[in-house]
């Protein structure tokens, strides 16, 4: 159930350029679904005011360890990156709907842009345990220093890496690689994607025109994270808005009016 958890910071790992793996020890158990997230309270004094939404990354129920992987982007994540081990951290969650994976079978393509991999990791692990699914990943980043735990991932899944500067794997964008893959190997049964909005938007075109069922983890600025402020609006295909923290963050491609998505 949604709740406020006071956690101890178990440890920190730098896992790449400005990339951190934060491991928290919870006071109790929590039931989490891939695609759900937590609001982390990083406040020192009156800044930053709001919590920071992060997808949960890995969860070890027996040890009550919940992990987050994050990139330093601004003030909040910067503060988070220099909190001390052993310190306290309040988190709120699990929030949002999580990915829909019932009845999933066949070839499933996971497309991550940059830090978007943090949002897909738990999904990959879950699908990896599903004997009916063949999981394949496309992961595009700016430059190879932005990959994290790539080796570990590659051991367990078929991963297609791409870098914009060509420093590792295919040179170019994740979306270009997806197009190639589809051309070569046909349509997957399902696509899951997480990454910057331009990537999701560009992915929505083939997904919708070729009618590939798919879901995205949609990141929008949030104040409450619990559906109370209507801040996290996502243009809905039927007109009006969905709310990322309540209806999402996992949304089907066809739920979103991509025309109105501002990048």
């Amino acid at each position, binding site marked *: 159930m949604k709740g406020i958890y006071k956690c101890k910071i178990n440890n920190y790992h730098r896992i790449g350029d400005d990339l951190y793996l934060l491991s928290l020890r919870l006071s109790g158990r929590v039931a989490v679904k891939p695609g759900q997230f937590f609001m982390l309270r990083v406040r020192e004094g009156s800044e930053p*005011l709001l919590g920071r939404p992060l997808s949960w990354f890995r969860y070890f129920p027996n040890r009550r360890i919940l992990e987050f992987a994050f990139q330093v982007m601004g003030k909040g994540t910067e503060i988070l990156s220099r909190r001390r081990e052993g310190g306290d951290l309040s988190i709120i969650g699990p929030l949002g709907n999580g990915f829909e994976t019932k009845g999933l079978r066949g070839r499933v393509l996971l497309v991550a842009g940059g830090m978007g991999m943090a949002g897909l990791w738990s999904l990959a692990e879950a699908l990896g345990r599903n004997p009916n699914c063949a999981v394949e990943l496309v992961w595009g980043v700016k430059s190879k220093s932005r990959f994290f735990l790539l080796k570990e991932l590659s051991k367990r899944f078929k991963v297609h890496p791409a870098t914009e500067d060509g420093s590792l794997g295919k040179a170019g964008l994740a979306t270009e690689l997806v197009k190639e893959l589809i051309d070569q190997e046909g349509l997957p049964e399902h696509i899951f994607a997480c990454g910057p909005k331009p990537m999701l938007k560009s992915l929505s075109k083939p997904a919708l025109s070729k009618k590939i069922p798919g879901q995205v983890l949609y990141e929008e600025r949030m*104040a409450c994270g619990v559906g109370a402020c209507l801040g996290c609006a996502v243009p809905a295909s039927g007109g009006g808005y969905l709310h990322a923290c309540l209806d999402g963050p996992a949304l089907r491609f066809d739920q979103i009016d991509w025309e109105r998505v501002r990048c």
Partner: protein
Amino acid sequence: MLSLETRIGRLVLKNPIILASGTCGYGDGYRDFFPAGQMGAVVTKGISLKPRAGNAPPRIWETAGGMLNSIGLENVGVDKFISEKLPLLRKQKARVVVNIFGERREDYAKLAERLGKEDGINALELNLSCPNVKKGGLEFGRDGRSVKQIVWAVKSRSGLPVWVKLSASRSDPAELARWAEEAGAEAVVISNTLRGMAIELEKKRPALGGITGGLSGPAIKPVALAAVYEAARAVRIPVIGCGGICSGRDALEFLLAGARAVELGTAVMANPRAPLEILRKIKDYLSGLGLQSIEQWIGTLKPE
């Protein structure tokens, strides 16, 4: 035993903590974290005659010590509010205040008429101060005569206690509070957000989809506090303080300045435990002073 009871016109609140409009959904946005019934009252998201989709995202932007929002009064409209949201609220054992908003003056009267017929509503809060919509709201809230007309219409059509929500942005809340009092409002709520704006430098565009938005949070606390202090001296009806209240100390300051209750907005979004923490701190502080009742604290700021 310390009594935290505070009287707002006809209404007695069991304590002075109110969840502010738009930051707790339809009053029940934090049901997973605490029972709304522990609050003195909850105020719903602003309700309009017709459903409203609200403004284009982004709708939230952080600023120094505060945040901007440009929700644009997204809401389900009064019909759906009555059929779907109100039943849940009635169950919560909280004092329920419905915040209403109109684009035209008549809208307020129509909303009053609809809502006046419903059970489980303890007061209507008129949003005359929203900086996030093109028409209505702030416009009416800047003109004393409009305030008076609207209050009068809502009061007579609904029979419910009327609270008027004003802003310290671009108008003088103490002055407008006088008009509201004259028209029979039972309380004024000061302040709504302040009109504000942020820019995404690299993209050379306004940060918010709605271009401008409303500033809330600690940054505006001094502005709200001054307005409350002045309004409490200008009118005899209760003033409810709102704006950047994040701690028990903040709340105690507003009460000291003359507010008979306080609304919490941004603080709750940042920390759902804030209302209970603030309530506890108020209790401890006033008990520590040996007071019997919060009445002995309200408005007792030394004049000098």
